[in-house]
């Protein structure tokens, strides 16, 4: 199953790159000109995201460097320890929501420290793999079209992060034994 899916993942992009222009050529689409025409939007879109991402990244960076994140984590950690959940994974749960690169670095650190086949290592892998960075996704996607009022989107994103975090821990503790 894994081999099959990873083969599909490996082939998907080359196949698309070859198939789409070929199919379009049969449908009499001027492929190269159409490509250039569509590609023009890419630059503007990327540039339009810059202010949004700079704003968000700056705030997150300050929050982490000041030691605020560590303080929040050490405040909640005893609570997790008391129900038998390894408290080391909590920072990952919080980081996962706000920064993709930061949480990947932290997950890698946990895997290295505790070993990939430890309970902490497995939970860290599962958390990191199972959701995307909510704040990044909101910033980029809504920033690209100039949405200022995200309405309930953030609440939904944070809620699903929480659910993902809790189930990742629960499943790992059930499957791999706590």
């Amino acid at each position, binding site marked *: 199953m894994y081999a099959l899916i990873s083969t599909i993942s490996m082939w998907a992009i080359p196949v*698309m790159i070859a198939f789409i222009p070929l199919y379009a050529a049969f449908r009499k*689409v001027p492929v190269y000109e159409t490509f250039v025409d569509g590609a023009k*939007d890419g630059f503007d879109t990327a540039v339009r995201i810059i202010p949004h991402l700079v704003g968000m990244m700056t705030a997150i960076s300050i929050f982490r460097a000041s030691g605020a994140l560590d303080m929040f984590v050490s405040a909640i950690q005893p609570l997790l320890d008391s129900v038998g959940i390894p408290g080391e994974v909590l920072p990952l749960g919080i980081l996962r929501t706000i920064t993709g690169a930061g949480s990947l670095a932290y997950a890698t650190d946990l895997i290295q420290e505790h070993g990939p*086949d430890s309970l902490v290592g497995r939970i860290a892998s599962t958390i990191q793999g*199972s*959701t*995307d960075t909510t704040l990044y996704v909101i910033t980029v996607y809504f920033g690209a079209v100039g949405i200022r009022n995200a309405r309930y989107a953030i609440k939904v994103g944070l809620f699903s992060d929480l659910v993902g975090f809790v189930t990742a821990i629960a499943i790992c503790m059930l499957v791999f034994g706590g």
Partner: protein
Amino acid sequence: MVNWIWLFFIVCGFVIGAINGRMEQVTEAAFEGAKTGVSVCIGLISVLVFWLGLMRIAEQAGLLQKLGNLLRPFIRFLFPTIPKDHPAIGYIITNMSANILGLGNAATPMGIKAMQELQKLNGDKTVASADMCTLLALNTASITLIPTTLIAIRMNFGSANPTEIVGTTLLATLIATTAAILADKWYRYRHALKPPKE
């Protein structure tokens, strides 16, 4: 809500940084963060330019529409207010397929393109429409079949069975996505009853 989260990060960072005597690090972090923001966007330029070009070909050839027709019931369920045959549908499907296959650098351009198409249907250009919120919910939860990066990291650190987390990840991501869809449906329903307040 973004306003509050943003303010919270900055004010908390300032106050706690002051208590910890880390003003120097805070200053440095502010500019380091800004730099990261720009370099992420610069990194996005190449993938956006490439994928938006390729997808324009797919759109002109009618491929996106075909894809949309194929998965119509599914899209109807999640995005009841998108008119049928609208180009947004094709982009939403390619965005989700790229997410599922773990093709991160293809998923983002398709998602942004889908947003732009949804924006065309949006009455108030500064307020997110219900369909935009649904697309966002799907992307923040992001179903992943194979967490390739994590498997590579586990291999690196000598795991006896690097892929053993595929099953747990899949289950966790399915449950998180279901939660996102249900929460989105709930809010969509509630907001349909009362107009959004500014």
